[in-house]
């Protein structure tokens, strides 16, 4: 029994070590997302919409605890509001927000940045990961550590809510960091018609960026049916959804930095939940 356990635990170590290797590509990450109960409001008096915030492998299947503390709503006039009612659960957070102002709102579930340091050490050069930044990593790293990289990692999940006709002000880019804007306005995304998003980094087109688009309902079909797109020179991705439904676009941007005392690399995961309507 003991030897089996030992073998199992060494196997587990190998698995977790390989998970660390995969981490830089975020292949093992749980994509975070925010899912509204409704994407549009027509009620003249305005209406409440409830949101789930979580991270998971299954598209829109709540899994990992996630905080909604950093969530804000960009109103149609561009100002920022915070949701009033937030509940933190074991496998998701929930918040509600009242929508009454005309136009498109951008809902942002922002998370504070985390710092991770990866390195190789030991006889087998196993890749390991610690929660440390560039300035405090020295005391935590083993003496033989090599290929040490510290990363500032941020996850942001966004979605759009439209009251009556869509508008563009809340979608305007800040030209700071990694961001995306729907060229096809939310509310205009329809099955069988092209949908275009534009990705920017510091206001410049994020050309060459890889974006993965997943449709809800993976629990009840055998194939993931994901679409993987590469942003063109304008930073745009374009696809024609075959089916109406809720979609998640997943994109990770990495940038090597010289001037951050806490990190060698900045990495942002930006996931957007959007609705494709019936034609």
């Amino acid at each position, binding site marked *: 029994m003991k030897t089996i356990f030992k073998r199992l635990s060494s196997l587990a170590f190998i698995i977790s070590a390989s998970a660390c290797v995969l981490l830089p590509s975020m292949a093992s990450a749980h994509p975070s997302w925010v899912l509204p109960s409704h994407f*549009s409001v027509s*009620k*003249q008096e305005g209406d409440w919409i409830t949101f789930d915030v979580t991270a998971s492998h299954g598209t829109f299947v709540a899994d990992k605890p996630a905080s909604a503390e950093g969530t804000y709503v960009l109103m149609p006039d561009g100002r920022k509001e915070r949701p009033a009612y937030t509940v933190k659960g074991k496998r998701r957070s929930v918040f509600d927000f009242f929508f009454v102002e005309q136009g498109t709102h951008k809902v942002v579930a922002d998370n504070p940045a985390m710092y991770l340091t990866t390195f190789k050490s030991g006889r087998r050069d196993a890749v390991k990961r610690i929660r440390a930044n560039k300035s405090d990593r020295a005391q935590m790293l083993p003496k033989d550590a090599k290929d040490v990289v510290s990363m500032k990692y941020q996850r942001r999940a966004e979605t759009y809510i439209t009251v009556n006709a869509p508008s563009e002000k809340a979608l305007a880019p800040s030209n700071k960091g990694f961001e995306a804007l729907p060229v096809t306005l939310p509310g205009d995304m329809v099955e069988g018609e092209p949908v275009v998003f534009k990705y920017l980094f510091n206001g410049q087109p994020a050309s060459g960026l890889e974006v993965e688009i997943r449709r809800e309902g993976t629990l009840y079909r055998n194939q993931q049916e994901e679409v993987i797109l590469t942003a063109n020179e304008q930073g745009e991705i374009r696809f024609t959804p075959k089916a109406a439904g809720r979609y998640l676009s997943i994109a990770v941007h990495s940038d090597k930095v010289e001037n951050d005392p806490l990190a060698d690399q900045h990495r942002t995961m930006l996931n957007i939940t959007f609705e494709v*309507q019936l034609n």
Partner: protein
Amino acid sequence: MHFSDARFIHRGFVIMALFVAAFTMPAAQAEPLPTGATFSIALTLPELNTTMYARPYVAIWVENSERKVVKNISLWTGRQTEWLKDIRTWWRKFGRYHVTDIDGYSSATKPAGDYTIRWDGKSEQDDIIAQGDYTLFIEVVREHGGRDVLKQAMTLADKSQSWQLPAAAEVGPVTIHYQVGQ
């Protein structure tokens, strides 16, 4: 040189004349529907034996060949506005741009039965529409139920015409009459 100049001018004039003709001819063709032309749309809202029956929301509108709404003929939604967005195609094409004057379009929801809706061929701007290609849309959505979008392409000119649409789950059959003259 003189000769070729003259020819050049002459050719230019012909091309210009062709351009003028190309741009003015469709406008000249775009005559309004004949005086007194009318539409009638006869439709059935079926009796449905379900446990949670609610009267359906119905929107009927006409689009031109550029897919622009020229006339919202009917909107049966009652006074509520909460579910307007669920008349999805109508909401996207027309409703969401007319929220401030939606009272002017909406009337009460209707129980199961046969209805005839009339339209005088006038656009939202109150002009008689031009002869040409149009599409009539009938969208019916029922809470706890389904949704149907019926479409009928129509070329409207100086002759009477009729179209039949078979029954769908939430509406139909539908008969459309375009009546010119007596």
